[in-house]
């Protein structure tokens, strides 16, 4: 049997930060970037009614559910969380906000390849820790000489310190394509693009056929090959139905721009975790937003533009 080639658990590489960047992180709540935010109707309720396996089986597509049915579905997820992890959780299903379309910017001249974003994401989004190890963000190490070219990319770099001389780092996660090939490929409509641009998966509708994984040009989709391994103590109890709620075995998952945070006016976990401020996020429809400022003052590009997926995720070089 061939080796399974699991992804290594890489410890935070010791990094040398410029002192002025060390305290880069500002309180996210203070940086309210969602000026146009309207309070999404919180659908969550703790109305308890368990034992709904038949209802689960004959359920309709998520988008066809009435608010009352959504409530019951959320209560069922909370009940099953309690059963699986013995902990109380709060599962919501806030919809997209009027006038908001999320955009992401990644400053390649700043990224040092420390993978802090990767671990913050794993923690925030309740990803399976080991066997299978699932990480929504993949940081590629590339040769400065070669430019952006995956044929000389290395994901498993483990040097004593980063960045390594002669290398630059290129993090990839779901690009929230405007023309998402994954959505087109899905035979059951278990994955779709929301009004605010986030491409979501309903883990209760996905049949695990992995067409979407074959279709995604960015390796952004990950499959739960086994029952996810997630220690109860590490469970993030603030969950979104279409986001970081714990997944069952046999379904696909992906980055959602931390839907449980962004729809509440907060930054995605990776944006907060980045020690060098390489990650920018905001509302594309708001001319004052951080992401629009980046687009205005820097030149941005998208990854694999020749495939016309039209990502809502932009790369740029600030310096």
């Amino acid at each position, binding site marked *: *049997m*061939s080796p*399974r*080639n699991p992804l290594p658990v890489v410890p935070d590489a010791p990094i040398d930060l410029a002192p002025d960047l060390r305290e880069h992180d500002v309180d996210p709540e203070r940086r309210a970037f969602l000026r146009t935010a309207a309070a999404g109707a919180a659908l969550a309720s703790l109305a308890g009614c368990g034992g709904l396996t038949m209802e689960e089986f004959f359920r309709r*597509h998520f988008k066809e559910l009435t608010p009352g049915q959504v409530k019951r579905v959320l209560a069922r997820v909370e009940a099953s969380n309690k059963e699986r992890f013995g902990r109380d959780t709060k599962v919501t299903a806030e919809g997209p906000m009027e006038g908001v379309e999320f955009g992401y910017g990644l400053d390649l001249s700043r990224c040092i390849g420390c993978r802090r974003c990767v671990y913050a994401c794993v923690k925030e989004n309740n990803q399976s820790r080991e*066997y*299978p190890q699932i990480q929504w963000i*993949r940081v*590629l190490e590339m040769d400065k000489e070669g430019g952006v*070219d*995956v*044929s*000389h*990319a290395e*994901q498993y770099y483990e040097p004593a310190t980063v960045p390594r001389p002669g290398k630059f780092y290129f993090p*990839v996660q779901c690009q929230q394509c405007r023309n998402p*090939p994954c959505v*087109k*490929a*899905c*035979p*059951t*409509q*278990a994955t779709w693009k929301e009004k605010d641009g986030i491409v979501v998966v309903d883990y209760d*509708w*996905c*049949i*695990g*056929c*992995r*067409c979407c*994984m*074959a*279709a*995604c*040009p*960015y*390796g952004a*989709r*990950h*499959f*739960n*090959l*086994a*029952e996810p391994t997630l220690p109860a103590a590490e469970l993030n109890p603030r969950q979104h139905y279409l986001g970081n709620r714990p997944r*069952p*075995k*046999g*379904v*696909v998952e992906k980055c959602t721009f931390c839907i449980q945070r962004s729809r509440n006016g907060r930054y995605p976990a990776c944006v907060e975790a980045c020690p060098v401020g390489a990650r920018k996020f905001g509302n594309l429809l708001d001319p004052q937003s951080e992401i629009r400022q980046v687009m205005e003052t820097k030149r941005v590009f998208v990854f694999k533009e020749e*495939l016309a997926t039209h990502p809502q995720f932009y790369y740029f070089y600030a310096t």
Partner: protein
Amino acid sequence: MTGILQFLKGCGRQIKTGNRAYFAWLAALSVAIVIGVIAYVHQAQVGLIATNIRDQVSWAFYIGNFTFLVGVAAAAVLLVIPAYVYHWGPLKEVVLLGELLAISALAMCLLFIMVDMGRPDRLLHMFPLIGTPNWPRSLLAWDALVLNLYLILNVVVVVYILFQSYAGKETNKKILLPLVLISIPVSISTHTVTAFLYNGMAARPYWNASILAPRFLASAFCSGPAVMIILFQILRKTTRIPIKDEAIWKLAELMAYAMFINLFLLGAELFKEFYSQTQELRYTQYFWFGLGKHRALVPYAWSSLLASVAAFFIFLVPKLRQNWVTLNLGCLLIWSGVYIEKGLGLVIPGMTPDTLGEIYEYRPTLVEWSIALGIFGVGFLVFTILVKISVPILAGTFKTSGATPASH
């Protein structure tokens, strides 16, 4: 009702009688199926982690087998065309056997899809009314549609022919012919849609070549008839169905042409990749020469090519294709050549290296081999039983006992 009961009892009798070789064959198939079931139970418990499928290579052996078998199913029915054009005599028999093979191959196709799914319990989400099939955008949704349509058509034709013969009546050309004529385009479309399933993925340059669908059809015309040639020989020996030598030789000759087209298209692809040497060469290179120390598929690639070329010459030279030893050898070679080409050779290099450039070397695990073995066991068992029941009906030795048909 009594008519049906009587028919079922008769079927049971047919299945229960046979020589030693027949029972040894059934026993071997049962062993294969048991192995497959055990392996699948294990996979269902632990998940697809029992396979070597990973995020990098997310479709693998199961889907490759599925693709190969769609080809077998499609080509089996297309045999009707040469059978008709060249007057192979027992046209009805050729049609029927082709359809039986198609039914068995389709059963295996559906099983391979089922074992590949992460959540087979939610299969219904793909069906109209109960679920939300993503028509017309998703090609897997289309594939499910045409495969099921094809299956239904085949079953209808088979049941019609058999029922008429069983009742001692002639088949009505006015009913049979349109059905057979419809099943030809449907059979081509099953294979084309399956090719499009890969073809449509811009993220995977190895598949995103317009030559893919024509190559699928060409190779299907090789693998499907190979089974029929062997089957015809067995049936001639064991039953009274008259199949002429010329029919078998003609079939072999047609396979040579199909193989020529297949090899030509392959050459055209290889030329494009190796001459232009773009980034996309990496996938082709991985299959044929390996990338660095990653060479898992290289032996498969060359043995597939070797088998295909050898079979091409065997079927091309009249002396060789008219010699039963070399003819059957050719069938085996062509079958294995296409099996590798459409199985591992199509799916794995499409995903190696993956979209972020990582090379994960996939090889099937024991569990995957066992499940595949079990599914082939089921397919061959279905085929054996269907043939066992149908042949005596066609030969007129198994028919309704009453003077008039028991039901209508």
